[in-house]
């Protein structure tokens, strides 16, 4: 393994320009793919946080009376792990509304009756996905004194559908860039092979096996893929450090945005994927050339 590794490094050094171009192209493709992945990782996390951290409001019907509260609480608790459950009476809710609409409180004075229902505000222990919250809310809604359950299903549901569509587009683009990188790697190996045609011919004449001839090319492909992936990650990190602080500062006054870099697991997957890409490009090329 070591002689092939040394040979591959020597070949990369001797064909510096071609290899630099290939590594740069791979890194560019990896960068595009990583930007998408980073966006999806962050967007998913932010959407989850918008999902009110698993919060939901349970609006109760007019038939509800305070003596029913312990039983309802027990039934809701029985449905799943509830972290917190707070009863908000219609009077408390009205006071909150008055506070929130302090500038237009005159309008509220015209109301003869309090139109707000009694409610329970809950926070679930497990709220990993929107679907989970949706399912749980459905179970609560089935209880007889429950009028409605509000968990952001309207706008969040629509947003998630758009986000999923965007995700599919992203995956398609990632695949496209993967194919581009594969095509370029495969062509670079082909060029490298033809530029070393004499060397390959001589190796065959002195009794080198096909595996012996192919090994440095594979090693070169692996190294190109690895360094391409690594470079892509480094560039992404620099971009992240430069841009993320700016974005956070700009948006800080409006919303809390916590943009995070890719997880270690994702970084490893990307670098491994890139290394595989280098190998696979080499495999495709050599399979065709040495047919």
């Amino acid at each position, binding site marked *: 393994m070591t*002689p092939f590794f040394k040979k591959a490094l020597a070949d990369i050094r*001797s064909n510096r320009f071609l290899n630099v171009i290939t590594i740069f192209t791979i890194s560019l493709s990896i960068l595009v793919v990583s930007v998408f992945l980073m966006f999806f990782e962050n967007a998913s996390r932010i959407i989850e946080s918008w999902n009110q951290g698993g919060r939901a409001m349970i609006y109760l019907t007019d038939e509800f009376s305070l003596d029913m509260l312990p039983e309802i609480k027990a039934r809701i608790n029985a449905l799943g792990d509830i972290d917190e459950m707070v009863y908000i009476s219609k009077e408390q809710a009205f006071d909150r509304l008055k506070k929130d609409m302090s500038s237009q409180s005159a309008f509220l004075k015209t109301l003869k009756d309090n139109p707000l229902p009694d409610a329970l505000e809950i926070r679930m222990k497990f709220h990993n996905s929107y679907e989970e919250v949706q399912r749980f809310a459905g179970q609560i809604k089935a209880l007889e004194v429950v009028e409605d359950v509000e968990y952001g299903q309207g706008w969040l549901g629509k947003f998630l559908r758009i986000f999923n569509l965007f995700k599919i587009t992203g995956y398609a683009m990632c695949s496209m860039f993967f194919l581009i990188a594969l095509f370029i790697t495969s062509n670079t190996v082909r060029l490298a092979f033809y530029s070393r045609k*004499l*060397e390959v*011919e*001589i*190796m*065959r*004449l*002195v*009794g*080198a*096996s*096909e595996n*012996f001839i192919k090994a440095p090319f594979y090693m070169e492909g692996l190294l190109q893929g690895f360094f391409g992936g690594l470079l892509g990650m480094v560039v992404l990190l620099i971009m992240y450090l430069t841009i993320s602080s700016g974005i956070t500062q700009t948006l800080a006054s409006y919303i809390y945005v916590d943009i995070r870099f890719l997880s270690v697991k994702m970084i490893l997957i990307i670098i491994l994927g890139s290394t595989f890409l280098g190998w696979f490009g080499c495999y495709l090329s050599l399979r065709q050339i040495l047919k």
Partner: protein
Amino acid sequence: MDEKNNKNSIIRLFNVSKRYNGKLALKDVTLDIEQGEFIFISGPSGAGKSTLLKVLYLAEKVSEGQILIDGMNLARISSSRLPFLRRRFGMVFQDFKLIPNRTVYENVALVLEAAGEKPSYIRKKVMHVLRTTGMEKKAKALPPTLSGGEQQRVAVARAVVGEPSIILADEPTGSLDSKSAQMVLDFLMEYHKKGATVLVASHNLHLLESNVRGRNIEIKDGIIERTATML
């Protein structure tokens, strides 16, 4: 061919013909070469000397006939076994066929690396061969920086480093001055003395006649015209 000859034969050709685009380069060649022989293949340019060597190391396949190398029928050799066959040959080419971007040492070591030898053995063996051929001091040089004679000495070193039983040399002195040609020939003779079977294809009959004791096979238009022993 008697039984005794068959036993010592390392290379046997039976009615071998080779056609290029319908034109015969070798025609019905039958030949028996004994182990340890020094064979000189002479003839004018285009006579079929190089083709004869090429069919032996399977750079070209025969159109008709059969070739046995140490009992192995070349027609039955699979592509995966071909490298093993070629490791039995040491080859010297007129155009040297050295890898230009590899050092002298690396060019010679390639044969042993391809055979899967250990690095320590490779180092020892290559340096020994380079010393013998007088190229030790140029071990780190790249072939394009060497003279023609030096490059051919490297090619000879590469041909003999694996201790092959057969050495094939195609016009090894063709592009060399008389001093370098003599030096290359001396190396080949030295390895012949060690027991290797040597086949040299050359049109330089004079140089060989004055140096070599062996068998001269004269080829013309792809046919063996004459076989003579040189004393």
